[in-house]
């Protein structure tokens, strides 16, 4: 009974970890460790590298250059051209993904025989690796034996085989097409998840109010899909900005610099020219721009919803 007067050690303290907090800490520790080691640390290290003139072909001279790498990148007109191409590629791709995915999601949200088959088929592009996707389209676009030429020729749309990826005016759009084909399924899934959460009552109510199919779509479906749609836009923009695999396999930034996007530029600067410092600076700029963009989009959408 003496215990009654002795205050328990932690009872009156506010600020120390509670039992639950200690539990949470233990449960989260593995994740925190992994993310710190393989995400946070590299991100910080990357910044550190970007302050040096680290060039691997010149391993014995590594001068501290401060922000010079950043100045070099930001004052390089070719970098800005690459930014323009990345922007063009992203806008093209995201717009196409959004439209196609919306149509496909509306289709798959209907009940009809064969719907299950369609939604299974939908997953095929999503599941295949980007590398396989790239080689598939490379083969389709092949100017000598490709399916695209073959099809258009057989349908009499063209008189002779055309050059596709080698045509600087078409390259970016063709790569975007390959990207869109692969990205649509995930967007459809995200939109379907959104569609599933719309209560059937809403449609019934709109019907009772005399809304036709188009009105129901505009006034019930679209507003309810807003957050899923926002997610699709943000996610696909992130994916498009950073996309690398298709550029690597389809064009290597060419022809000329027609598909020389920022991600490709970082790769070339880093792993071909071995300018690790400059590459890290460029990476940092891209990362910050992506973060800012994501933040801005999410903020803008959060305010509207």
């Amino acid at each position, binding site marked *: *009974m003496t215990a*009654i007067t002795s205050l*328990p050690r*932690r*009872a*009156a303290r*506010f600020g120390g970890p*509670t039992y639950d907090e200690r539990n949470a800490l233990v449960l989260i520790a593995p994740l925190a460790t992994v993310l710190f080691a393989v995400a946070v640390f590299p991100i910080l290290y990357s910044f550190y590298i970007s302050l040096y003139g680290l060039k691997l072909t010149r391993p014995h001279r590594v001068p501290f250059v401060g922000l010079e790498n950043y100045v070099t990148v930001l004052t390089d007109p070719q970098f800005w051209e690459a930014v323009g191409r990345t922007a063009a590629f992203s806008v093209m791709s995201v717009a196409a993904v959004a439209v196609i995915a919306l149509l496909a999601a509306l289709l798959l949200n209907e009940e009809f025989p064969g719907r299950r088959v369609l939604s299974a088929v939908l997953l095929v592009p999503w599941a295949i690796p980007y590398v396989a996707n790239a080689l598939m389209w490379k083969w389709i676009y092949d100017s000598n034996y490709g399916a695209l030429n073959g099809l258009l020729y057989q349908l009499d749309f063209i008189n002779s085989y055309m050059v596709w990826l080698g045509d600087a005016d078409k390259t970016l759009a063709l790569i975007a097409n390959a990207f869109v084909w692969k990205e649509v399924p995930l967007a459809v899934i995200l939109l379907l998840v959104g569609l599933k959460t719309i209560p059937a009552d809403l449609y019934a109510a709109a019907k009772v109010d005399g809304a036709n199919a188009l009105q129901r779509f505009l006034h019930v479906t679209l507003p309810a899909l807003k957050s899923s749609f926002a997610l699709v836009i943000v996610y696909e923009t992130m994916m498009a900005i950073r996309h690398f695999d298709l550029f690597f396999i389809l064009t290597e930034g060419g022809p000329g610099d027609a598909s020389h996007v920022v991600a490709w530029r970082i790769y070339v600067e880093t792993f071909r020219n071995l300018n690790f410092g400059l590459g890290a600076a460029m990476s940092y700029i891209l990362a910050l721009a992506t973060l800012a963009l994501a933040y801005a989009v999410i903020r803008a959408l959060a305010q509207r919803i």
Partner: protein
Amino acid sequence: MARITFKAVTKRYAGDVVAVRDLDLEIFDKEFVVLLGPSGCGKSTTLNMIAGLEEVTEGELWFDDEIVNTLPPHRRDVAMVFQSYALYPHKSVYENIAFGLRMRRVAAEEIDRRVRDAAAKLEISHLLQRRPSQLSGGQRQRVALGRAMVRQPAVFLMDEPLSNLDAALRISMRAEIKHLHTAMQTTFVYVTHDQAEALTLADRIVVMNDGVIQQIGAPDDIYERPRNTFVASFLGNPPINYLDGTIEGADGAVSFRRGGMRVALPPALAARLRGSPGREVKLGIRPEDVSRHGLGAETPAMEGIVDTVLPVGSDRFLGLKVEGCDVFVRVDKQAHHREGEPVRLALVPERLHVFDKASGLSLLADGAP
């Protein structure tokens, strides 16, 4: 088998939101205590602290002679029934009931015996192999009870267990829970916002508001002698009526006065208020504490105009205008008042409540100002 003691317990959430403030409470072994209050009053937090689901921020929580502030729920001998029943959707009814015993490594035969026993008592033996999703609300409720029962815990906690049931079922379940308490001979702590449940079930009621205990007492005690206007209002249906007014202390008699209305106060109150004429108070009159009979010159009475008449079968409710205030009273059904008619009703002096207008505290209670 367990006495629960709160000593100056405070629960604070991040952002300095205080859920429970400076709580002192002793719950005796085998007692049935109901924590009563509106939502957000801290009653569920208090219950969760007993269960160990939430940690005490300041102060001490005792189970018998042991401080359990930091003891996690699985090391406390408590069982709990939830408002949503919280049955495990992926387990059969049998497994739901058995789960707590399995976690405590009770022998298999013993588990089986206890589960079947409880199921028989609760008349759900035929449901043991079903999944929760295949049960009705009432059946789920019984499974939830069974799950707690088989544990034979030192403390039995219930968090609004009847709120999701329809009215008829709720009343019959009240009786069952009462029986359960008698049968189990263990400490029950029951949280509800329904005063009728509290009044029916409790040995003692703890009324809470804004994280602070307003009053602790037996149901009658609380109903008859509310310590303040909050408690007075929270119990009783329809709720108590208040008339604001002043104390008059002429010729040795002490009375309440509002406009043309004067009510002589009973001796106990009069004795307390003799010295403070002109004091602003609230007069509390419960709807049932009026009578059409026994009206004499000396009996305190209330006059008003009938505003509405609501027959409810056994009784009749009248909405009156008394000195500019709305007052709701219950009269026997022989009263044939019509709207717009003046009426005069006798008040039962010893059932009148007088509260300090500013603090809301009862002027009858111990230590009242």
